[in-house]
């Protein structure tokens, strides 16, 4: 074990830092949250710049235009990326982290040709059509039905919690092709162009009151069979290839952001608030902040340790569920601290008396989604209990 960076790692960091230091300010300030066409243009414009500078697809194979960085380089990448306050992956999320990687592993040559480089260049936006009103944690119970009609699948159903659907070009869609077999065995993975007839996208406001989510209603949508990824009824296996990408280094940037946020919360707590007394003067608050800091650094080290092990074995880190679970619950604890520091100023959601109420309360509310999305905390504990600790399943 040697925590010192190698020369090559230092060079990688330096190159990236130097590029970001010019590119980030040049990209300007993000558009308003509710202006989805402008957000798409801003997010994909940034992706295009990264592609041109050779920084897109940090984990993707070079054969597909990616950087194919080692896991340690990826960690450096996310660290520098967050440090530079570079734009959030935004509408590119599903394409870069789910759709693209799945096609790289499972797609036909024609599918790869049609999508992969376009995703990397920021020319294609994807959304995810997995969850349904009655298929959340129990995803395999999904009911959206696809029936074969010649060279097309005719699809009817209802998807929900679909991020970026209003600006997406394609949807990675899970459908039931065989209702007679056990639930995992009758699922198929399809690429659905979002401009097909019969698709209706209705906004589903989040608890922020914002329209990131949509419901997607599918009424006799005809999808060509050539858009199928993997074999018919083999979609569950294909999906698990996808989900694996969600639990590796994907959160590294956000973890680094979390460290910065706590420092900002501590700085805010040190400002005089009322009659000369500061939140920071409360010893129990300081102690809790010290505790949170130890937990963030512990989490960052846990990520490094699990990456150090995965880099050697080539398999995704066994501790990925532990990292996801601890990270998302920690973000909520830090969100609680942010609200505690602001006191009654959080009764408004816009900045008040020089306090960053909008930012802090947005993040605190956003953190509520994190223990639910991408495998809830309860599902993570089940995975850890059964797959890592070998505890018996409840049948």
């Amino acid at each position, binding site marked *: *074990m*040697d*925590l*010192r*960076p*190698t020369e090559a*790692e230092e060079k990688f960091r330096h190159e990236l830092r130097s590029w970001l230091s010019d590119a980030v300010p040049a990209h300007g300030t993000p558009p308003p949250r509710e202006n989805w066409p402008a957000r798409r243009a801003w997010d994909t414009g940034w992706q295009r710049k990264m592609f041109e500078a050779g920084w897109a697809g940090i984990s993707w194979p070079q054969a597909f235009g990616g950087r194919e960085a080692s896991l*340690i380089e990826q960690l450096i990448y996310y660290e520098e990326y967050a440090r530079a306050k570079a734009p959030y992956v935004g509408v590119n999320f599903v394409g870069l982290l789910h759709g693209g990687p799945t096609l790289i592993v499972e797609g036909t040559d024609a599918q790869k040709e049609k999508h992969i480089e376009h995703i990397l260049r920021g020319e294609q936006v994807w959304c995810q059509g997995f969850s349904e009103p009655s298929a959340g944690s129990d995803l395999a119970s999904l009911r959206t039905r696809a029936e074969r009609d010649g060279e097309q699948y005719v699809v009817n159903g209802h998807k929900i919690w679909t991020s970026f659907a209003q600006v997406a070009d394609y949807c990675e869609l899970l459908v039931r092709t065989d209702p007679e077999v056990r639930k995992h065995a009758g699922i198929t993975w399809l690429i659905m162009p979002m401009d097909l007839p019969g698709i209706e996208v209705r906004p589903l406001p989040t608890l922020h009151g914002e329209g990131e989510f949509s419901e997607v209603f599918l009424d006799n949508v005809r999808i060509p069979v050539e858009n199928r990824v993997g074999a018919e009824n083999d979609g569950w296996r294909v999906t698990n290839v996808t989900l694996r990408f969600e639990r590796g280094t994907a959160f590294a940037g956000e973890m680094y952001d979390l460290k910065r946020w706590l*420092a900002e919360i*501590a*700085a805010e*707590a*040190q400002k005089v608030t009322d009659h000369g007394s*500061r939140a*920071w003067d409360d*010893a129990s608050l*300081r*102690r*809790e*902040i*010290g*505790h949170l*800091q*130890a*937990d963030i*650094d*512990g*989490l960052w*080290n*846990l990520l*490094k*340790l*699990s*990456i*150090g*092990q995965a*880099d*050697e074995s080539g398999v995704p880190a066994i*501790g990925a569920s*532990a990292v996801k*679970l*601890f990270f998302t619950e920690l973000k909520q604890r830090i969100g609680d601290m942010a609200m505690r520091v602001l006191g009654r100023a959080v009764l408004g959601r816009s900045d008040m008396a020089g306090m960053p109420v909008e930012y802090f309360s947005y993040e605190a509310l956003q953190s509520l989604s994190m223990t639910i999305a991408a495998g809830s905390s*309860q599902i*993570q*504990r*089940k995975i*850890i*209990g*059964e797959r*890592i*600790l*070998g*505890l*018996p*399943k*409840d049948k």
Partner: protein
Amino acid sequence: MAFKLSDEQLELQRGFRDFVAGRFPIEKLGQLADGAKDATLWGELAEMGVFSLRLAEARGGLGLFHVDAALIFEELGRALVPGPVVWTHLAAGLIDGAATGETVVTGLDLTTNRHTPFVIEHLEDAGAVLVLKNDGVWRVDPSTIEATTVDVPLDPLTPVHHASRLPDGERIADAQAADALGLLGATLSSALMLGIAEATSDMGVAYAKERQQFDKPIGTFQAIKHMLADTFVRQELARAAVYAAAGTLDHPEVGDVATAVAEAKLVAGESAMKNCRTCVQVHGGMGYTWEVPVHYFLKRTWILESTFGSVDEHADRIAATFGG
């Protein structure tokens, strides 16, 4: 950067784990608590290099690193090996006979904890008491301390004395050395607690697979399964924090040593404490008995958590890095 154990380190840890498992199986805890003695254990630990492993080879050591020491102490913690292992390791190279196990050394860290009475562990066996103060490292002769034996110590394997006054003794190293020994002591105590966190997670899991209620192993129930999943997360977090602290001690240029160590002590302390409690709870009524050895782990954790800075003290230190 290589944040992973090398093949040699994995081998060192495996080898030492096997030695400890053979030499100090869990039944020993009950036997020693009942008054049995193990006169040769200390010498064997010394022979394995527990106290001398970081000393240069020319001085009779193994020339190993802090990370290696952390791995060894993780195993001592896992088996709950008794004795002032941390203090004697700290004294190696400072006090004659410590490295070889001939002098058993105990100690007090007065830079973090100034409570009186002074509560001293393993005083009866000690040939020297090492005292860390803000102005340096002091050596006190145990025979000069007016100490009272505590009839029933909290941890049956950690006898304690208390004294209201402590003679000054002899100053044997400067303030900087006291600081360095404090950091090392905190790191090794954290490693012991990491081992305890792992042992109690494993014991809880094993029991939950075997114990049947409502016609099922209790580990089938989500309430139990999720508690045990949390023990795994805490154990892994502690491992990361402890290895990071040891790795930073080995190469101080990679970070801030004092912060890394404070974080390790905090995270490992909390991990061990919560895992011990979960382990008691999972064992149910048997967990509240003397017969099931879980209580030894919880009691030892109380001792380790209170030495070289408690969770709260370290949280305060870390908060102080934000200024203000």
